[in-house]
């Protein structure tokens, strides 16, 4: 009884499909699926996890310093007090993010700058952006509290891009607030 019903339904379905579709249409659909499937990864989607290792956990997160006076495109901006390099905010990025086509070095040097808005010392992480040749705009050399190279943890004369995911080529520097000292 059940099998008879199944047979009937299958026969009806295949006859119907034979009537309304051509064999070429199957080939056309298959072709679309194959080509479309292979083209999908080429679409401009966010692929931050495409690296061998996921770096986002290791990169510093900006903590809001409250009032944040000044111009991020100027060397005089308070959080650039110990910077030595090109400002990412002049190079297609921002004070806390890298320009397109570069990668942030997870290894960096960290110092403090006084925020004129509240007179407090904030901890600043100067992460370099790497992988494209030097930006060349807004060069700032302030070096306050910078230590000599034999105290490398606090030295800004080191190329912090070296050995990172985008390796040696230095493009520009960010200044990310980590907290209050």
């Amino acid at each position, binding site marked *: 009884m059940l099998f008879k019903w199944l047979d009937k339904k299958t026969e009806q379905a295949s006859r119907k499909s034979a009537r309304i579709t051509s064999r070429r249409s199957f080939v056309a659909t298959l072709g679309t699926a194959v080509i479309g499937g292979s083209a999908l990864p080429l679409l401009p989607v966010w692929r931050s996890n495409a690296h061998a290792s996921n770096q986002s956990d290791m990169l510093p997160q900006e903590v809001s310093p409250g009032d944040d006076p000044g111009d991020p495109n100027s060397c005089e901006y308070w959080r650039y007090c110990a910077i030595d390099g090109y400002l990412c905010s002049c190079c297609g990025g921002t004070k806390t993010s890298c320009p397109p086509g570069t990668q942030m070095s997870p290894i*960096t040097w960290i110092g403090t700058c006084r925020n004129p808005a509240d007179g407090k010392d904030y*901890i600043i992480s100067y992460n370099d952006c790497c992988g494209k040749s030097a930006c060349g705009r807004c060069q700032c050399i302030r070096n306050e509290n910078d230590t000599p190279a034999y105290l490398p943890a*606090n030295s800004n004369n080191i190329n912090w891009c070296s050995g990172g995911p985008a390796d040696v080529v230095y493009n520009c520097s960010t200044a990310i607030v980590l907290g209050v000292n």
Partner: protein
Amino acid sequence: MRENNSAVILAALLMLIGPAAIADEQRAKANYMLNCQGCHTADGSGHQGRNIPTLKNYMGKFLKVEGGREFLIQVPGAAQALLSSEQLAELTNWMLREFDPKSLKDNFIPYQTQEVHQLRQHKVIDFTPVRSSLVKKIELLP
């Protein structure tokens, strides 16, 4: 009256202890950021590509092998940090609790200022082989 007094004393003690403990933790955290985080990264995972060892779920294992307790203070990044021995002891204790609480379960004795001061006097000239022999011992741990 007597009860009132003890309540006042208790409240005063709490006010003394409470903020002090928090201030120390904040100082330790700030000292970590300023002296360690640039290389060891915010969550202590370090950077394999540049041979920067991980602290996360690992640092406390040094306390379980002979010579490891000394090493955590004598390693150049710690011994030569621009910190007083008091703050280095506080920072190391904070790091152990923050990055590797699992390894500390069985009776952890926090570093004291005096101990850290004495350990820092002894310079380890070539620390790479010292570290690798400790890591070998750690790998043999049950």
